[in-house]
């Protein structure tokens, strides 16, 4: 274990992926798998700040459900899960590039080029997964693209499950109708293992849909369900002729070959999702910020986290002081925008309209999935940008990082980002989307791309 501990220290010193480390028994010498956890997900007795200093000293009293499930999963297996620590992300998940770090920690760096972003918000998960030489699973979270974007930038696999499959109990909410806990890993097998280990119906999270756990690992190589049907794949967002898109097209060719070898028929055609593309980003931002602004209102320095009590201030001034001093600029911007969208005189124009359009987007997807099994396109429109360049772009441009991946997130659809190759020596990602609760199918297809 000493080697593992040494590696964690080395990686962290150079790339800043962990905000909190968990003590490891250095004398353990059995089989193991290391596991990292996004800071927004609670693990008992380990400080959980969602990368914000307003939550300094918040030590949760319980494990989140995914941690409990993980511990249970490995109980009767000859392999021990080693929880190594909490990974850095944009404060509360607010960002696509992981430059919005709300605590006294350095910006994490891309594992392939330390001047570039590792993507956000689950950047620490992706970076550490890419960098460690040991078998590793990272428990990440996506609200509007926080798994796909960093997975793509760092060249690892990132699965965002269907909204409602994985319990959110113990996840610090960003936008509670959009937050999804997912998995990052170095190969598709460990994505399947990771999904099996965090899965499990949870009564305590009312949004968790009642279901039986599936054996995702066994189903990876099981072609029987697909032999007699034609797999229909829709290509999306591939109009432009660039390296990212060419990498996706190469992967599609590979996929086609492999399906042919397995005697599985496949049809591939281009699908127009311009309606979804046009409205997803604005709808996503209006709803996610509205929800975030109510979710974050509990953070006021009174019962946990940052405190300055007793105080001579009245409660209003005290709350204003604590929140002004401890939220980052981006967080304040999102709270103000989200509150505005909910106000009585604007809610019809923004919040209510966005909810209606979200419904239309979901309907549109479901209509597409009547005819298609999968949608495939690039995960992100660009490779990981330079950190110095990000500092100069507008908040709106920063939001564009999620252009592609916010669409399935908004519809709660399962999707996976798969490494597709390189562009200028930087990793590129390909995204596969499937219908609600068809993760087994999604992983099966992903496994055909090698």
């Amino acid at each position, binding site marked *: 274990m000493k080697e593992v501990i040494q590696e964690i220290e080395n990686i962290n010193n150079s790339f800043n992926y962990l905000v909190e480390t968990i003590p490891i028994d250095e004398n353990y010498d059995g089989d193991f798998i290391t596991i990292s956890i996004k800071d927004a997900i609670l693990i008992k007795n380990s400080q959980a700040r969602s990368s914000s200093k307003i939550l300094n000293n*918040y030590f*949760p009293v319980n494990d989140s459900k995914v941690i409990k499930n993980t511990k249970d999963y490995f109980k009767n297996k000859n392999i021990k899960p080693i929880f190594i620590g909490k990974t850095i992300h944009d404060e509360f998940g607010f960002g696509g590039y992981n430059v919005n770090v709300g605590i006294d920690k350095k910006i994490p760096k891309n594992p392939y080029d330390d001047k570039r972003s590792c993507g956000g918000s689950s950047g620490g998960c992706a970076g550490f997964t890419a960098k460690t030489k040991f078998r590793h699973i990272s428990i990440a979270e996506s609200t509007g693209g926080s798994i796909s974007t960093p997975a793509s930038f760092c060249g690892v696999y990132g699965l965002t499950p269907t909204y409602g499959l994985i319990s959110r109990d*113990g996840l610090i909410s960003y936008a509670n109708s959009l937050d999804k806990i997912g998995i990052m890993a170095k190969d598709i097998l460990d994505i399947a293992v990771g999904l099996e280990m965090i899965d499990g119906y949870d009564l305590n999270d*009312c949004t968790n849909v009642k279901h039986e756990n599936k054996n995702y690992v066994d189903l990876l190589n099981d072609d029987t369900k697909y032999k007699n049907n034609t797999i229909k794949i829709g290509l999306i967002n591939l109009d432009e002729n660039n390296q990212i898109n060419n990498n996706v097209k190469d992967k599609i060719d590979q996929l086609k070959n492999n399906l042919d070898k397995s005697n599985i028929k496949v049809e591939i055609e281009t699908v127009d999702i311009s309606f979804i593309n046009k409205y997803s980003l604005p709808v996503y931002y209006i709803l996610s910020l509205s*929800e975030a602004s109510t979710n974050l*209102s509990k953070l006021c320095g009174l019962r946990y986290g940052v405190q300055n009590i007793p105080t001579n201030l009245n409660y209003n001034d005290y709350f204003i002081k604590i929140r002004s001093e401890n939220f980052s600029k981006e967080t304040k911007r999102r709270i103000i925008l989200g509150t505005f969208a909910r106000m009585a005189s604007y809610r019809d124009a923004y919040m209510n309209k966005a909810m209606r359009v979200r419904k239309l987007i979901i309907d549109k997807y479901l209509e597409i999935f009547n005819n298609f099994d999968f949608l495939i396109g690039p995960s992100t429109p660009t490779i990981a940008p330079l950190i110095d360049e990000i500092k100069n772009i507008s908040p709106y441009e920063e939001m564009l990082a999620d252009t592609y991946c916010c669409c399935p997130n908004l519809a709660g659809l399962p999707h996976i980002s798969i490494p597709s190759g390189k562009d200028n020596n930087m990793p590129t990602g390909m995204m596969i989307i499937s219908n609600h609760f068809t993760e087994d199918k999604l992983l099966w297809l992903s496994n055909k791309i090698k």
Partner: protein
Amino acid sequence: MKFTSDIIIGLEVHISLKTQSKLFCSCKNPSFHGKNIKANENVCNICLGYPGSKPHPNKQAVLFALKLANIIGCQIPKKLCFDRKNYFYPDLVKNFQITQDEFPIGMGGKIQIGLNEFVKLHHIHIEEDPGSMVISNNTCLIDYNRSGTPLIELVTNPVMTKPEQAREFLKKLIIILEYLNIFDRYNCTLKADANISIKETNYTRVEIKNINGFKDIEQALEFEINRQKDCVQNNETIKLETRGWDGTKTFFQRSKEEAADYGYYPENDIPPIKITEEIIKESMIDCNKDDIYYNKINNILEDFDINLEDLEIILEDKNLGEFFNEFLNKNCKYENKFNPQLVANYFRNRIIKILNQMEINFSKLNFNINNLTILIKKYLDKIIDNKINNLLLEKVLSESNFDLIKYIEENDLEQSSDDSFITDLAKKAILDNQIAVDAYKNGDLKSINFLVGVIMKNSRGKANPSTAKQILENILNK
């Protein structure tokens, strides 16, 4: 807007439900388990709103609300939806309250406050109670034991026209809630916010917050009406404002010129839950039409000749009412043994009076109900007298192992109608009280009562007074 009355009153009533646990977690509900818990010891990560915690609704609370909605004739929506009402306050752990905004659990409905009198409701909804704050010496202490306990907010239309009507409304509401077994006046709380406006101010609406119980509501409203009338006379303008009530007067709290914007948002941690026919049925499982206070009163009035006001008072306590009804059916319906009004008198003037003295609710008593039936019959049969009845009634109601019959025998408490026993006493009384005997013989017929009193005294209450009187008359008129 045109009003038909000079005074317009509307109420928003917050009712704490006696569910076993809180609304969104499994902590104890002090309205059920009592409030003897140290401050901040009846809390968990959910009712403290800790980051990462998620609410899950308490089925019992939903069933209670559905039962009430159904009984008072609300329209029940197809789905149960919760919303977040956002405002910052130290007793509100999440700085938003989980409540119901657009689709409350009951729309409309009405509360019956008299045989033919109803108050129409706007709606009822479910919400969580915040914690409680104690402010003293410029310091604020907060106790979250109450945080997250279930409330029903019941909003009337602005249809009441007199303070005593508001009082009657709350009084009857409490009875109705107790009949449904979802509230108990000793552990649960009921607080009202009253909106009041009078013609003289062009119906400018003033809100009085946090009035506890039905006695205060009448006083607070009367005070406020007089205050507003005084203001008008002194040419002061009444503004839209919120006022408090300290038990003797209303006082300014804040101006309402700018309406608060709570930025309501759906509580997405609790997706809409289908309200099925089955679940409505389940909510009514321990409840039927007879569990409505006035239905029960009407049923009794159909069969028995009893004063309405007596019935209203006796049936205030559901269990006492049930016992009363049963007693009437067994003893007054076919056998015609007792006059039902005399039975009612006994319940109102004896039983309820003693319960009030004992400061206890009939349903909270631990006693042998057969004893009570025996005692009532003996009293109505004039086998025991008034004083002894009072003594026995208190023992019957307060001692669970009390053996009434044995006690009466051992202490020889039954009145005697035994002629020879009373004749002996009568003869002695005549001998000892010649003045009264002479007065009677000279035409002062009332002085015979004095002699009856002497017999009663010498028999230590055992002699039946009417028998004694008859025997005296027989002897004296010989």
